[in-house]
């Protein structure tokens, strides 16, 4: 246990802010994301999934950390690299796998696939196939929350590459002039596909762009769970208080290639290995152990439990029915409302 006389500054924010149960659940979610994506990758390699997918392995602290202080009424918008956000917001793994497998039981009834998974009931307005497509939508959700007085906050996830789209700039400006309850979370994994931020982006830190829209901007170690929660929780509290938007930049790294087709020609093996040393899950587990919240045996049992959950999810997805061909064009429009 931490020394009870320790000053707050010696104890990481997350340990102070959350109960042991909440922290263990956060660690579990990080493992879930990792195993889920490894399972997805494996299914993909074995030809069970078609299309493409983008893995967020190595970025788990950002997804889980940013959602820590959110409730089911709060919203998120996600990206093409969105499995982690989805799990962090409380999604069901079976329905996610079913979506990968194109099944009727999937989150999008097999119509969307990996790039469009949404979980509207839990406040996840969806992954997005369009880079930066979700950013103005997040601002719209925040506008609803303000006008309707729901008290909900929207966390808007996007990548470093997205910050060069016009939609990013237009959306941040509107969020600021209308003082909307939205937190922009940039997951800066150093590349948009093959293009490094050095080659694509005029500022050194994406958080610096906040100044152009008169909102606070903060750059944090996105592989440090506690640092992420500290920054995002403060921004969420600010938004909930009616003080307007913030921009948080989580500096992280994707271990896998951009998508299925990636020869990693734009980065070195050494760079990848260096970032694997900074594994956000290992760091989270170490932090919890250091503060006496968990131990090796408990972590091993979480891992085993997660393994089984992923296996069960895959089995559910495999056994699920495919959509009917006749239904290919349903849901293009809403059902007619009776007059």
């Amino acid at each position, binding site marked *: 246990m931490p020394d009870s006389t320790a000053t707050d500054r010696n104890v990481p924010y997350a340990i102070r802010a959350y109960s042991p149960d909440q922290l263990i659940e956060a660690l579990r979610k990080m493992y879930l994301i990792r195993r889920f994506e490894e399972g997805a990758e494996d299914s993909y390699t074995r030809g069970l999934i078609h*299309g493409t997918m983008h893995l967020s392995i190595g970025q788990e602290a950002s997804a889980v950390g940013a959602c820590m202080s959110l409730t089911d009424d709060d919203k998120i918008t996600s990206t093409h690299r969105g499995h982690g956000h989805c799990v962090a917001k409380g999604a069901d793994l079976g329905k996610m796998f079913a979506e990968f497998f*194109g099944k009727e039981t999937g989150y999008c009834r097999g119509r969307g696939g990996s790039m469009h998974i949404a979980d509207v009931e839990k406040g996840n307005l969806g992954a997005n196939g369009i880079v930066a497509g979700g950013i103005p939508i997040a601002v719209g959700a925040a506008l609803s929350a303000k006008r309707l007085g729901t008290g909900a906050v929207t966390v808007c996830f996007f990548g470093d590459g997205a910050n060069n789209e016009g939609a990013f700039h237009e959306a941040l400006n509107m969020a600021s002039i209308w003082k909307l309850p939205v937190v922009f979370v940039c997951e800066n994994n150093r590349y948009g596909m093959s293009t490094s931020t050095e080659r694509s982006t005029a500022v050194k830190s994406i958080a610096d762009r906040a100044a152009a829209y008169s909102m606070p901007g903060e750059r944090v170690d996105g592989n440090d769970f506690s640092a992420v929660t500290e920054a995002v929780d403060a921004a969420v509290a600010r938004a909930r208080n009616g003080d307007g938007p913030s921009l948080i930049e989580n500096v992280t790294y994707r271990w896998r290639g951009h998508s299925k087709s990636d020869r990693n020609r734009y980065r070195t093996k050494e760079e990848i290995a260096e970032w694997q040393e900074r594994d956000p899950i290992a760091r989270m587990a170490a932090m919890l152990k250091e503060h006496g919240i968990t131990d090796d045996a408990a972590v091993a049992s979480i891992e085993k439990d997660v393994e089984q959950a992923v296996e069960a999810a895959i089995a559910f997805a495999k056994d699920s029915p495919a959509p009917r061909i006749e239904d290919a064009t349903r849901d293009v429009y809403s059902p007619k409302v009776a007059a």
Partner: protein
Amino acid sequence: MNAQAGIEVREISYAQAIREAMDIALSEDERVILMGEDIGVYGGAFQVTGDLVDKYGTDRVMDTPISELGGAGVAVGAAMTGLRPIFEFQFSDFATLAMEQIVNQAAKVRYMLGGAVSVPLVMRFPAGSGTGAAAQHSQSLEAWLGHVPGLKVVQPATPEDAKGLLLAALDDPDPVMIFEHKLLYKMKGQVPSGRYTTPIGKAAVRREGGHVTIVATAIMVHKALDAAKALEDEGIEAEVIDLRTIRPLDGDTVLASVRKTGKLLCVYEAVKTLGIGAEVSAMVAESDAFDFLDAPIVRLGGAESPIPYNPELEKAVVPQVPDIIEAARGLAEGRT
């Protein structure tokens, strides 16, 4: 095709043919630059630019940030002032982000300025479904751009045309939009080496036949040819026309065929309603060829829905070979 003497014809892929055209253009003309997302060291999302960056450097094979509207606009401005940009969209769907510059600027600048400038711009759009990439990465939006005076819009169906139309587009003083079906990139075909051009605005008769005319675009040309082959065994001779350019349309080739067969089937992957099939049908209906029609015109196009992810649904929402066989047979046998 008009080619130089001393050429050699080899079998290469559609993607290689496009790369070869760009290679020729880059080597012949200093004004030519390539712009797009991840077209440099990554080689392009579909490996079309490949290793051209190694040969011409990052000043001429330029990776843009993920900024379609701005990037397209930079290409327009560069084209107006002395460069010859070839701009690659990573997926044709992302043209939606750049519509302002394509539609309001590139297409209209020359007209609005009373002919004082031209916009010699080439844009390439990987298009179509069949890759499991779902609704935002699988669209066929060529008719959107085909609706805009000032643009020319082509859809090469073969490796030979992919190269020839790209070189023709570069020779053209006006903006030319090239829609490349993603499933064709790996298709191989006979392609002459060296420089040649394929005329913009000219359709090609891919197969002759007297019973029914099938007018198709892009990948549907190949599906129509497969269908025609199957119908041959039943004694039905289909004429297959590859439209190649949808703006300007080659009326002569289509009308001549319809006068001969008296039956018209239009096949295209884009959503059926308000698409290229409507234009071709109306062109026939408005001409003397209408008098030669022995049956109502039939259109086969994409379903009235976005492209779904599930592979079976994905196939179901665009015309397939059996659909074409059935429709052509119905027409030929007078059952429609």
